[in-house]
């Protein structure tokens, strides 16, 4: 009986662990840049409370990318709002990706990274969701 109760308690703990989400990170796959491309990474808070988040865009082997604008990393992202990190000129012929690290749970964050062609009106040519 004691063993049975212990098993149930263990299952409870394991079940609860799934919803803890402490310090979670969501990350995109790598997108290949080509030439004359710009990048953007949007993070949306679909929850009801602000989420402190650090958003980074980087290229092959973790080298950073020069950021042209960002409004994600200096204050918690309010509920319902979207922040963005933009690189107006991505390095040629590299892969780049975006990650967002929440101080707590990332469950209510939705993220999207975009590769845009500079000639012809910044049309998005590749995109991926952060998971």
């Amino acid at each position: 009986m004691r063993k049975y109760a212990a098993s149930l308690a263990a299952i409870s703990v394991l079940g609860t662990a799934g919803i803890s989400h402490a310090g979670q990170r969501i990350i995109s796959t790598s997108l290949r840049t080509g030439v004359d491309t710009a990048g953007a990474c949007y993070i949306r808070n679909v929850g009801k409370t602000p989420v402190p988040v650090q958003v980074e865009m980087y290229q092959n082997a973790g080298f950073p990318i020069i950021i042209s604008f960002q409004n994600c990393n200096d204050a918690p992202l309010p509920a319902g709002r979207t922040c963005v990190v933009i690189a107006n000129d991505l390095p040629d012929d590299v892969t780049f990706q975006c990650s967002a690290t929440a101080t707590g749970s990332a469950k209510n964050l939705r993220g999207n990274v975009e590769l845009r062609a500079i000639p012809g009106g910044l049309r998005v040519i590749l995109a991926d969701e952060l998971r």
Partner: protein
Amino acid sequence: MKLAIVLSIAGCVVALAGPAHAGQTIASSTIYGAFNQDTAECIVRNVGKSNVTVDVNIFDESGNPLSGGGNCAAPILPGDYCFKRAPISSGVAYACSATPSGSARDLRANFVLIDDLGSDETPLRSVVLR
């Protein structure tokens, strides 16, 4: 001992309560299409066996809901879909959220940015709500 078992079972029930999806919102990420984007459309399909009432909204980056048209005010019949559509600006990114009155388990939704300036509509970007 009995109390321990009861508490353990209660813990399991609480832990498993998450996937019930009651009143859950499904939401897209925020997306941008191109300078020639001018229309956003959010399409919500009911793949279940009973009617679903759903509140569908398109938002700008600041979280402001856009006013627009569509047919999502009425319940979605099984197998049917509803849409919300709104005019958008060229230099801004947008997102969509759908909140059913009950479970979101049987909803499948997609958010599309469209170039509607010419004679034909050209979809530019789409993303799934989850």
